[in-house]
C-alpha cells in the first residue's frame, strides 16, 4: 500500500499520456434517442468517459406539495454505476453525486422555459457508466441534449467541458489520471449563444492568468462539443437548434 507516485503528465514534446496535445479534446461520440422508454435521451462518450442521460416529463409533480404554481420544477439525479470508477463506488448516492446533481440541475434550470409548464415536473437522470474525467460536464452536455430530444423548450443548448492544469500547463478535457495528479480541474458549462456560463467550479489552484487562459480554452472545446450536439439533433430532427 504505497502512495502512487505522480507520473509525468506532459512529456518534452508537449504530448500528454494519451498522446494528445494540451488543447485537444478526446474522441467524442454523441447520440440522441438511445433509450426507448424515456421521453428524451442521449449518450456521450468522451474517451473512456461514458454517460447516459434520460428525461421524463413534463408530467404531474409528485408528491403534489412540491408543485409550484407558476412553473415546472426540475429534478436532476447524477449517478454513477458502482463499476464506473477504479475503486468500486459504494451503492447509494455519495456526497459528491449529491453536489453534482445540484450544480447540473441549476445549470439546466438556467436555460429551460420552466414557466411554460406550471405545476409540472421534469425529471433528468444522468447515469455515468464509466468515469474517466469530465463526467459532470459530459453529463450536463448529455442532459441538455436529452431535454432537446424530449421536446422541452429551451432558450438554448448547453455544452460543457473541463479544463485542467497539469505540470504547469493549462489543458483541455483532463482524463482521470490528469485530474488526480494535476494541479487544478475546472468544469465549465456554457450556453454558447449567449456566451454565458451556467456551470463553473474550480478544484485546485490557479493564478488569475491561468484562470483566464483556462476559460478561453474551455470556450474552444465547447464550440466543438456544441457542433457535435447540433449535428446529431439535425440528423435526427432535420433541423439545427440554431434555427429554432
Amino acid at each position, binding site marked *: 500500500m504505497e502512495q502512487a507516485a505522480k507520473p509525468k503528465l506532459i512529456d518534452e514534446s508537449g504530448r500528454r499520456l494519451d498522446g494528445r496535445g494540451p488543447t485537444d479534446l478526446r474522441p467524442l461520440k454523441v447520440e440522441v434517442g438511445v*433509450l*426507448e*422508454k*424515456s421521453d428524451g*435521451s442521449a449518450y456521450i462518450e468522451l474517451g*473512456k468517459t*461514458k454517460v*447516459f*442521460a*434520460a428525461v*421524463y416529463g413534463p*408530467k404531474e409533480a409528485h408528491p403534489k406539495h412540491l408543485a409550484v404554481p407558476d412553473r415546472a420544477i426540475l429534478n436532476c*439525479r447524477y*449517478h454513477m*454505476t*458502482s*463499476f*464506473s*470508477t*477504479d475503486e*468500486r463506488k459504494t*451503492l*447509494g448516492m455519495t456526497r459528491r453525486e449529491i453536489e453534482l446533481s445540484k450544480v447540473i440541475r441549476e445549470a439546466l434550470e438556467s436555460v429551460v422555459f420552466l414557466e411554460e409548464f406550471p405545476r409540472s415536473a421534469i*425529471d433528468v*437522470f444522468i*447515469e455515468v*457508466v*464509466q*468515469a*474517466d474525467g469530465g463526467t459532470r460536464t459530459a453529463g450536463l452536455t448529455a442532459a441538455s441534449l436529452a431535454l432537446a430530444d424530449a421536446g422541452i423548450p429551451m432558450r438554448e443548448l448547453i455544452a460543457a467541458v473541463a479544463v485542467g492544469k497539469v505540470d504547469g500547463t493549462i489543458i483541455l478535457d483532463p482524463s482521470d489520471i490528469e485530474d488526480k495528479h494535476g494541479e487544478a480541474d475546472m468544469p465549465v458549462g456554457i450556453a454558447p449563444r449567449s456566451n454565458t456560463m451556467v456551470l463553473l467550479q474550480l478544484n485546485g489552484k490557479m493564478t488569475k492568468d491561468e484562470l483566464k487562459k483556462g476559460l478561453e480554452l474551455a470556450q474552444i472545446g465547447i464550440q466543438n462539443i456544441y457542433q457535435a450536439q447540433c449535428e446529431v439533433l439535425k440528423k435526427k430532427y432535420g433541423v439545427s437548434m440554431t434555427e429554432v
Partner: protein
Amino acid sequence: MSFLPIKERSFAVRIMNDKIYKLLQQGKRIDERSPYDFRKITIQTNVVEKANGSALVSMGGTRILTGIKVELGTPYSDRPNEGIFSVNAELLPLASKSFEPGPPDERGIELARVVDRCIREGKSIDLERLCLVPGKMVYILYVDIYVLDYDGNYFDPSVMSAMAALATCTIPKYSATGERIEGEYMKVPIRDIPLSVTIGIIKDKLLVDPCSVEENSLDTSIVIGMDSTSNIVAMHKNSPGHIPLSLMESIINVAEEQIGKIRAQFMEAVRIGQEGR
C-alpha cells in the same frame, strides 16, 4: 413492507388479457412473435473497461448492463473456505417512468436475489477456488446489475448479462499475503452456465419472455433457471395469480426447449468476448 403496486387492472387490461389469449389460441403474439419465442437478443461484453468484467444485453426493448468488480476481503464466518459472490440490482429511473430514484425497492431486491439464486445457489460458481487463505482472505465478486431500459421481463436478460460478464471477467491474482501479482490474471471458476426463461400464463396458455404490455395483462408468471443439462436450478413465481398444477409439466418442457435455443447464441457471444480480452 410489501404493498400492491398500482397496476392497471381496469377494463382496458382485461381486454388486453383477452386479446393476448385469443392470439395465443392462434399461436400468435401482439408483437408478431410465436408464443414461445424470446425477443431479439444482443450480447456485448467488455463494455466498461474499468470493470473486471461487464456485459450489455438487450432483449427486445429491455437493456441490462452488468459490471463486476473484484476485491479482497474476509469470508463469511460460516463459509471460511469460499469466496464471496454478491449480486445487486438497480432499476434505474432512466429505464422506465415506473422506476424511482433511491435505494433498491422490493423489485430490485427480488431481481438481485433471483439472479443470485440462478447462479450462486445453483452452484454454478466454484466459490472454493476463490479462497486465498481460509477464514482470512478471499476474493469478493461484486456483480452489479443495472436496468437501463425496461420493456418487460428484466429477469432473463439480467441472468444472461451477469453470466456474460462472469464468463469474460478477468480477476487479478493476489498472493496469500494479499500482494497483487503483477500481470497475472485468472478467470471466474464457472462450473456451468445457468440461463433463465420467464413464462407468462393466461388460463391454459403459456408465452415466453413477456414484453411490458403482455406483462401487465398476464394471469401470472414464473421465472425458471436451468443449467446446461436441463436441471432446474431456480424457480420464482414473480407476480400474483394462480398456476394450475396441471400446467407445470408443459411449463418445464417449454423452459427446457427455449433455454436450449438461446444457449447457443450466448456461448458464441461469450467466446467472442473472451477472445477480445
